[in-house]
């Protein structure tokens, strides 16, 4: 059983799946492929394969979010604890059976989470205003489609085409729903935001949410967040749409934050590879240029729209703080 291959197959086969959930599903398949043995042995296998999975990805954070969630769930059942307040207490074998049997249910729940995000997020879309969106996030598209379905709200969208492969399809989906969507490049953002009292909301998705409430997401997000705060004019709020399973127990402390939390990305601030492209082994390990990520500080984020409601950045810490 190759967990890395299973993970990539899952991502390729299901367009709706998120990376943390794909990691969880590949770990569930690992359970299926591993012969039933003692609880401790199973946990050891899970730890080893989790490390292998994380090693294979230049940006391991989204996989870490899902893998940690899975591992914590297992460890808690091992301790006889319930993971959620509502849970019945299951023994380890029962837990394993529950995970194997309900793989589809988890996938459904993950997708249903986007619907809840759409309900909470569409409150911020106001009649007669303009929303700026970026990054091709499926959760953001769902929010806007839900708001579009509300006939009392008439709004427009400015979509920042920041190079994400999903931008085109997002714009197409929004236009198909009857929304007026203008597209701009990332260099035009400050120009569009300045003195524009129509834009009240800037919405993005993210790959992971850090424990301190900051986000690691597509390169350019931090630029968008800072401009939202700094550009003079009327009040604009910056919201991030993210399911709770994207929360990862890491904090970005100091520059270079992205590298310090474990993302293998080129650091050109050192001017070490002038004029030469990194290729071969080194290139395979690094995040490709078009998938580079940046870190956005929590002070630029007005709220994180999750399926459990809108969380303030200060509320994220306690959600993952009691991991074993």
């Amino acid at each position, binding site marked *: 059983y190759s967990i890395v291959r299973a993970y990539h197959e899952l991502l390729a086969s299901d367009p709706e799946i998120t990376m943390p959930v794909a990691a969880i599903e590949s770990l569930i398949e690992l359970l299926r492929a591993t012969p039933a043995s003692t609880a401790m042995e199973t946990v050891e296998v899970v730890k080893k394969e989790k490390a292998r999975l994380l090693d294979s990805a230049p940006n391991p954070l989204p996989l870490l979010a899902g893998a940690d969630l899975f591992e914590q769930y297992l460890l808690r059942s091992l301790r006889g604890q*319930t993971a959620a307040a509502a849970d019945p207490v299951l023994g380890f074998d029962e837990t394993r059976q529950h995970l194997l049997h309900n793989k589809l249910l988890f996938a459904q729940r993950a997708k249903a989470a986007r619907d809840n995000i759409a309900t909470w997020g569409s409150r911020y879309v106001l009649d007669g205003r303009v929303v700026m969106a970026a990054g091709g996030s499926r959760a953001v598209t769902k929010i806007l489609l839900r708001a579009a379905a509300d006939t009392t709200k008439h709004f427009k969208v400015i979509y920042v085409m920041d190079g994400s492969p999903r931008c085109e399809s997002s714009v197409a989906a929004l236009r198909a729903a009857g929304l007026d969507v203008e597209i701009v490049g990332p260099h035009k953002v400050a120009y569009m935001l300045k003195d524009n009292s129509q834009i009240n909301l800037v919405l993005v998705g993210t790959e992971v949410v850090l424990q301190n409430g900051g986000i690691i997401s597509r390169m350019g997000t931090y630029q968008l967040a800072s401009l939202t705060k700094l550009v003079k004019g009327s009040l604009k709020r910056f919201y991030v749409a993210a399911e709770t399973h994207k929360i990862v127990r890491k904090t970005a402390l100091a520059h270079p934050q992205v590298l310090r939390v474990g993302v293998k990305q080129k650091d050109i601030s050192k001017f070490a590879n002038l004029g030469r492209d990194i290729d071969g082994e080194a290139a395979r390990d690094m995040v490709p240029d078009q998938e580079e990520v940046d870190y956005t500080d929590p002070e630029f984020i007005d709220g994180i729209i999750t399926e459990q409601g809108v969380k303030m950045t200060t509320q994220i810490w306690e959600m993952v703080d009691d991991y074993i």
Partner: protein
Amino acid sequence: MAPSQAAYAPSLEKLLKSLKSKSLEASIEDLIFLLKRRQVSGDECANATAHMLLQVVARSKWHDVDQLLSRIQSTGSRLAQAAPHEPVIGNIVRRVLGLIRDEASEDRNADEFMSESVSDLQSLPPSAPSHTRPTGATPVRPALVPTATSLAVSKSMFNLLSAAETADSPMTGASTPISQAQPTSAHALRSEVIDGIEEIMDEISQADDQIAGFADIQVHPGDFILAMLPSPAVERFLLKAAAKRRFTALLASNGSYISAVGEAPYAALRKKLNAAGVNTVNLASNGLLAYMPRANKVIFGAKAVYQSGGLLVDSACCIAARAAQEYSKPVIVLSGVYKFCPFDPSEEVSKVDLGNPMTYVSYGDGPAVDALEVENAVAEYLPPELVDVYLTNLGPQTRDHLGSIISDHYKPEDMGLSLLINEA
């Protein structure tokens, strides 16, 4: 109003006195009427809502918890929608709903304890209190309120993998009712909930005094305190401080303060403060910035505090806060915990409540100012960055801790009420 009509004019006191004699529905209608006409406003709304919900619990017919919850929800929504500019109403409704859930689960736990074996108690999860409800200790299936329009929200990170039937989705009609597990005694629950609501009413009435209890810590000797539009809570705070400290109070108001002819604003407060040995200076609205460098701190009350730390305040407090920021003076906001709203407002502009422009331009001058549109903002939204300390009846808090206070006082299942009553 003609004298003969005044006797029939509805007011909150009359309503409260007549609660016993009128039918429940008539009383609710009366309160809705008062709320819509803004004859009950501000902090009084909290008390009125609590009274009305107590009547609903005491007098309406219900047989189990779910019925009671849906009654409270529907009455509460009607009251909240009658006064959308008063978020406190929604807060009290949520507090009562949370109280009912607590009491119902305590009953259930008590019965479970009798019948279940000891080993089930081992399942107590040691995780942080913000994750688990005390009800989670027993293996009984959790409750999801079956009202079709409520959003069942659970706080656990592990909902994705959970073995329990956590339906996060809002509009599902099929969910496990609370009362299914154990038939609760409606009579016992009724009296417990009534006690609980009376505790909430006590909390509301004592909030101002408890806040004032922190006055001697917040006010230092020789301070110049700028009190913007001092509300009764702020008055009590200043008077309590005056008992122990020598300071100077700068009482600021905008032109909207309605006082007896010839009297300066806040005359009664000034007299009391002067009697206690505190110098007072009245500031007209345009004197604010001139005195700001002299002030040590700025104090005012709030109508509501949002999850993000933003406030709903009387208009002109925004100017005071912004001026304070300019001169780096700390801004202290006085607000009982019952004013904390568990939601993030979707729009700031809608919070601006417009009132009677006659305080600025008399209707008699109408033709002269024909080309002008005179707006009188009565309440406004204050962004969170401008506030330093939230002084509550539980003590001073910072913005980062609002989340934990909110989660202590409200149940996650009731957070979705904001969507139901369409709070912005």
